[in-house]
């Protein structure tokens, strides 16, 4: 079945996650409903996608997108800005998109939401 170059690279990167930087990740047991379970099995069986790393980047991206949907999310984001941003996480994606910006004067992190 067809796989784009981007998805192949992503899979390769995801595979490497299981070997390096394990402190940055937590393994969770997901008990999905039957519909979701069927599709996860389908992706695994038909496309050979490894289930364990399948959702790492996707969850980060989805959380980032959801956070960007409302200015009201600023307060919850603010709660997590005291710690360094974990590479690839939802918050680091917010920074990469320019939605939050680390102030250069060292007085903390300033939030800037991009107006649509």
């Amino acid at each position, binding site marked *: 079945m067809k796989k784009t170059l981007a998805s192949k690279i992503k899979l390769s990167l995801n595979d490497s996650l299981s070997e390096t930087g394990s402190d940055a990740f937590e393994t969770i047991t997901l008990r999905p409903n*039957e*519909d979701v*379970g069927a599709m*996860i099995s389908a992706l695994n069986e038909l496309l050979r996608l490894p*289930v364990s790393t399948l959702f790492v980047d996707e969850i980060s991206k*989805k959380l980032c997108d959801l956070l960007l949907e409302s200015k009201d999310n600023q307060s*919850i984001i603010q709660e997590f800005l005291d710690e360094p941003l974990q590479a690839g996480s939802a918050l680091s994606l917010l920074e990469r998109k320019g939605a939050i910006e680390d102030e250069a004067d060292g007085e903390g992190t300033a939030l800037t939401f991009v107006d649509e």
Partner: protein
Amino acid sequence: MTYHFDLTKFGDGRSFVERFKPRELGNSKFNIKVRKTDLSLIDRLAELTGKSRAFILNALVQNILMDMLHERYEEDEDSAALLALYADQKLGKSESSTDGWSAALFGLESYFAKSYWLRHDDDNYEPSEEYWEITRRIQALKK
């Protein structure tokens, strides 16, 4: 009375029972990796909404799978349709079931809703007074 079967009249498809019997998915579980800070965010969200971490993760994963299926559909309609059908068949559903992955992909259930909301893109479309009234109430509830 003795009957004989003419097997040439029968196909090689799924059996009557197999067609309607969901496969062994009832207690399926998967180990997935999640970035720790994403998990902290999910836990905070769970606290704020009163939902469990598992509930939120399951909702996210379901949403993500739908996005993945639609992305694949954009790249290759055929393989997306097949993936959806395969998943549906695991559930004892067919491509014409209205509540399966195929339906979600091809929009069987949402066709009329989509057609309706497309009308809003037309500059000349004027929703009813009641529509605006309900819109105001929704906005007020959000405050």
